[in-house]
């Protein structure tokens, strides 16, 4: 008999045979159901029983309707889909048959794409440079970053909040390929910046100040997203996203914030800056300029800057001046500014229905005594910020005082978080930062025609070399780009971080980011809210 069956199965190709029999079976099954439905009955219909019958029919229909939301519309439930992708033991699980959608940069270059030969595979053309912002999607190592955040979206499982849309989804064909995701990052800038860091521990962030759009979000050292396994055990923590998860003392960069605070208070005092430094209160160490220490090392004595105004103090990055300025501003103004800067909150830079990507919250203590401000004003002590937050702060100065929410998702709307200061104050601060680049610590970055404004930072850390910072914007009048560079344990900001920022600025200029103002078309786009369509 089995021979005969075997022959039967080979007459029709295997799958067609099953399909034909399935259809005939369902046909007979349906016919028989209808025959029973209309079979003659000797009993007359009575009211009581009619009600019971109606109850049965309604309840069965309700159960069938609910069953449909799983059997047909299961793909609109993201936790169910995630469960099936993981625990469905079938040889060809339906939930995994959809090709995962690609991720593009702002110019349509592919930064993550499905691999044609492998259902689970993922290809990252830029390798290590994009490992941090995008994360990875790996059969054994799991999913992280944007890949995780947009997991169900990229897999084609639309999630509508609207009930009507949800109901429509039930009748949709399951898609064969997930929709694509477009980021605001520019792959070429990202790659250039990543290469400039040459594997050092550091961060490069490039932003558009008017919209908070992030063009590059580099954390170095990167890791191989095709094989992320070893990254977590290697030296220097390559799997750690320094740009968003690292907390650093901002050092002299914080003088920008203090200057802004003072100018908002309409203070622009002249302080005497003696060589021996400034003592804010008894039993606190004196705060001195870095020149004091370099003279000491040569065996000379630093005479001090004498009387400085704010502009000069910024140019020389004078600790003694800004400590006094911080103390003069007072706790109230300082605390208010910290609140406007949102330092103690995580910055959300990407959102999806499931979750959001955000930085860790920074740390700014609530100050009660004036004397405490002497140390905080120069960005040392308890104050800690993520590099992305520093970049956002710089962008706020570049954007005439409006702090914009950083964004990586092209479809995300532009959102203003807060106002740091008035446009006039921002203009004044930019002018001081311009002076830093013309004649101060940032001289090496004075690129012809770009009108760069910048500020160096050298943040002392308890052990190891100082962290080198440089944050800048260009051009002065209407900045189109903000660059923030951090080299962990890199030494002086002007020596380690500044050259990287300079090269990045040149690269951005070659791509036309610096001289041409940003096209604000994104502002007009409708908010994508929750569910997004292909």
């Amino acid at each position, binding site marked *: 008999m089995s021979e005969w069956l075997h022959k039967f199965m080979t007459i029709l190709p295997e799958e067609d045979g*099953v399909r034909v*029999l399935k259809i005939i*079976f*369902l046909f007979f099954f349906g016919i*028989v159901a209808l025959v029973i439905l209309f079979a003659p009955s*000797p009993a007359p219909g*009575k009211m009581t029983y009619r009600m019971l019958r109606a109850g049965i029919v309604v309840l069965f229909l309700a*159960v069938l309707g609910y069953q449909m939301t799983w059997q*047909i519309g299961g793909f609109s439930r993201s936790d169910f889909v995630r469960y099936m992708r993981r625990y469905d033991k079938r040889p060809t699980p339906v939930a995994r048959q959809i090709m995962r959608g690609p991720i593009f940069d702002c110019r349509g270059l592919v930064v993550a794409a499905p691999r044609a030969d492998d259902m689970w595979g993922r290809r990252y053309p830029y390798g290590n440079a994009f490992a941090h912002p995008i994360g990875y999607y790996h059969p054994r190592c799991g999913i992280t970053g944007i890949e995780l955040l947009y997991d169900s979206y990229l897999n084609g499982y639309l999630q509508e909040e609207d009930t009507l849309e949800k109901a429509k989804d039930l009748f949709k064909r399951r898609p064969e390929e997930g929709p694509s995701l477009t980021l605001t990052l520019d792959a070429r800038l990202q790659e250039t910046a990543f290469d400039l860091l040459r594997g050092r521990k550091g961060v490069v962030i490039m932003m558009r100040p008017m919209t908070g759009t992030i063009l590059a979000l580099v954390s170095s050292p990167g890791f191989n997203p095709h094989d992320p396994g070893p990254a977590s055990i290697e030296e220097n923590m390559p799997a750690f996203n320094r740009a968003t998860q690292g907390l650093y003392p901002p050092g002299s960069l914080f003088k920008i914030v203090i200057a802004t605070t003072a100018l908002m208070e309409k203070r622009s005092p002249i302080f005497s800056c003696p060589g021996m430094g400034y003592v804010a209160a008894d039993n606190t160490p004196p705060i001195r300029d870095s020149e004091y220490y370099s003279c000491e090392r040569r065996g000379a004595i630093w005479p001090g800057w004498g009387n400085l105004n704010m502009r000069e103090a910024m140019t020389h990055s004078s600790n003694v001046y800004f400590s006094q300025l911080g103390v003069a501003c007072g706790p109230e103004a300082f605390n208010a500014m910290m609140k406007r800067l949102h330092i103690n909150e995580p910055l959300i830079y990407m959102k999806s229905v499931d979750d959001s990507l955000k930085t860790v919250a920074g740390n700014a203590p609530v100050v009660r005594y004036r004397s405490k401000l002497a140390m905080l004003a120069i960005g040392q002590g308890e104050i800690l910020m993520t590099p992305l937050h520093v970049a956002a702060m710089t962008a706020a100065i570049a954007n005439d005082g409006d702090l914009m929410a950083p964004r990586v998702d092209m479809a995300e709307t532009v959102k203003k978080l807060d106002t740091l200061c008035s446009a006039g104050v921002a203009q004044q601060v930019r002018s001081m930062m311009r002076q830093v680049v013309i004649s101060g610590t940032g001289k090496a970055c004075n690129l012809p025609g770009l009108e760069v404004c910048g500020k160096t930072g050298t943040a002392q850390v308890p052990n190891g070399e100082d962290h080198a910072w440089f944050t800048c914007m260009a051009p002065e009048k209407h900045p189109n780009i903000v660059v923030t560079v951090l080299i962990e344990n890199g030494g002086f900001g002007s020596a380690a971080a500044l050259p990287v920022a300079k090269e990045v600025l040149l690269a951005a200029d070659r791509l036309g980011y610096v001289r041409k103002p940003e096209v604000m078309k994104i502002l007009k786009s409708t908010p994508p809210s929750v569910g997004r369509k292909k």
Partner: protein
Amino acid sequence: MKKGQAIIGSVASATGVYLISLMALTCAMLSLLGIEAFLNPGRVQWQPLLPLALYATGVPVVLIWLALNHWRGDSGVLGSVIVLSAMGVLIQFRMGSYDAIDLKTNIYPLLPLALGLGAFVMGVTLTSKGRGGWMQMLGWGAYFLAIGVLVAMMVLGKQYRGGVYLSGNINPTEVIKPLLVFFLACYLSQRQKDFSDTVSGIPIPSFPSLLGLVIFWGIPLSVAILLRDMGLVVLLNTILIVMLFAVAKRLGFLAIGLAGVAAATFSMQFISSHAQARFDIWLNPFIDPTGKGWQILQGLTAMYSGGWWGSGLGTGAPETVPIVTSDFIYAAFAEEVGFVGCVFLLLIYATFYSRGFRAAGVTRTPFERLLCVGLTASLAVQTLLNVAGVTKALPMTGITLPFISHGGSSLVTCLFIAGLICGLSDNE
């Protein structure tokens, strides 16, 4: 309806249903055996086919017997039983429940179907032609038998997945159900007037009758609660409510009663950890996806893989669902026959139950009428609880799917009940 027409109508259309079912069965069999032959050529066994052969020969014997006895009941009821048991045999064959059959050593998997057909015939004989009225005398006997079985379960039974079983995994719950329906039909039909009294539209039964009901119903119910069998408690209470409604003919009974059943069931979770776990899974199976939520999520995964048209019989993988042959057989069905197949299946079930309720209209005595309603309700509620449990519309209750789930006691009882309903639908 003319007499001659009725004769032709009843058995003849049931025979038609049988023939079409047989064709559907043949298609499914060819598909299943073809895949089997394809996967392991030359190793197709003939012994597992015996239940199908028994079905194919047994049903015509029953039909001929009915025709000879001039059965003129509702062919919709008879037809549904024929199709549903065909689907049961088919899906159990597919799930490999009959693989162990060996004519020389192990014929036990064949027994439920054979006994079930016998029980069906017995049921029809007991109640057809309006001769079921005498069974009213058995009401109290049935009651004490049910109590006896419940007490025996309490003493001898062992807990298994929220249900109580006697040795050999016989589930006596199945027997309690019709026995208590007998009792209720007897008790309520004698006090029909008391329960249909109303005070300004609200049904207020006379106090002694109500007290009697509370006491007599309370005993088996509290035993069921002590047994921690949530499924049995829901089932019994819902049957009671439906039967009260059939007596009083007041929607108030149905509305208040069903709300009460829901509340009582919900409070079960405070005395039974098993019931509590089932509520938790129902509310969110993703809390413990690999533990408590595993079965329901695997069942839903199987359904999702089926989609509209199903994977085809034999080509799915419903065996990934734990205990798929009994409680979760509906998930297997949904995967391989698809949503469309499920619609047909539930359409057949719904027809069966609505015809069952309708049959109550032709009965001669109030007792038979209530018996018909109660028996139909018992199967209907059972179906609903099982299907809703598998699809996560309601918490799982561990109740089997009539005619289709694996389990001898279930099949025999369901066929016996179906036989009684079939008989009740014929009073000529």
